[in-house]
């Protein structure tokens, strides 16, 4: 296990009448009884921004919730007036001015990812199509519902994962809880579009309503000229 120590030194000769000297060090460990060392890191990376839009630096969905993750952020700007507003999703934490850094724990609480099923029935004919998430499945020959499910599950979707729930049912799950799109239900869904010359049907039913994560780490630059944030997460699986 990796040993990572994090130290903070706060010092001032004139902030208070007797000066300030505060030094603290901790070895970063995992949550829970074992308390073994944290052993994963994103590495220190940099993000340059060129607008005053809000940027998501870390998606909570990509980390295990309620662990002992630690986040490091630093504003590399040398212009005193330039700052990043750091937010925990919609909650503003504070401003990182030029040269400032932050180091804090992060629970990475997940949201709820949307899910729906498609139940295939009857017989699918040659050239029938199923279109979803920018992916089109076109049949080369007549297929059973089971074969149709196999084809649907074998496809790669940019924003959803899909598994076979039964011989006639495929279950789609959003990759990101912040994808709040509600897939239209029924056999004539405008979102999961089935076109058939035969009697094949694909009926959509929503199974999980999405809830956006409220725990993404976001930054908003104060200026539209180039600013650079240095960042890292030390985390556990």
């Amino acid at each position, binding site marked *: 296990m990796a040993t990572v120590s994090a130290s903070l030194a706060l010092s001032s000769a*004139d*902030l208070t009448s007797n000066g300030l000297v505060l030094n603290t060090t*901790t070895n970063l460990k995992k949550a829970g009884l074992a308390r073994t060392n944290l052993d994963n890191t994103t590495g220190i990376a940099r993000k340059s921004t060129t607008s005053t839009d809000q940027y998501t630096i870390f998606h909570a969905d990509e980390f295990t919730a309620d662990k002992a993750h630690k986040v490091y952020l630093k504003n590399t700007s040398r212009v005193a007036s330039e700052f990043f507003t750091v937010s925990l999703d919609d909650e503003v*934490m*504070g401003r990182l001015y030029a040269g400032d*850094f*932050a180091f804090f724990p992060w629970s990475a609480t997940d949201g709820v990812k949307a899910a729906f099923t498609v139940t295939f029935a009857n017989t699918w004919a040659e050239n029938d199509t199923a279109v979803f998430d920018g992916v089109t499945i076109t049949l080369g020959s007549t297929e059973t519902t089971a074969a149709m499910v196999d084809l649907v599950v074998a496809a790669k979707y940019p924003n959803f994962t899909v598994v076979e729930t039964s011989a006639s049912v495929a279950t789609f799950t959003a990759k990101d809880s912040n994808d709040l799109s509600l897939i239209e239900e029924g056999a004539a869904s405008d979102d999961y579009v089935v076109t058939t010359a035969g009697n094949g049907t694909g009926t959509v039913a929503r199974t999980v309503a999405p809830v956006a994560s409220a725990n993404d780490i976001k930054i908003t630059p104060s200026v539209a000229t180039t600013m650079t944030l240095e960042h890292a997460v030390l985390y556990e699986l």
Partner: protein
Amino acid sequence: MPTTTATLTLNTSEFSGGGSISKSTTLRKAGTATGIDQFTGVSRVYQATAANDISVVAAGSYADAQAGKVYIKNSTPDTNTAYLLVEMASNVILGRLYPGDWMFLPTDGTTDIKVSTSAANMYYEFGVFHEG
């Protein structure tokens, strides 16, 4: 004006390309070269029983849009798994500070910061550098 320096050091020899990084910053008022000149001091608190929503930064006590910094540490001896849950505003969970863990976070005076202790007999400390 006072000069207050904060230095973060992360040290490991076990990640490839590891070693040490050290970053220092001088705590300054928002958008200026003037040093932060107010400090709450470091409070140390013993919490005999688990408690929720203990105020560390009450946003209403500070001016908005400032370059404050808050320091919080779970100083409970490292003999158990008691953690300090750090929350923003209306109980939006930021993260958990396990025994010995500390944090250093900007605060702009618009969001409350609270902690909850997960067990009895916990210690924690905190201090706020601010502009008033």
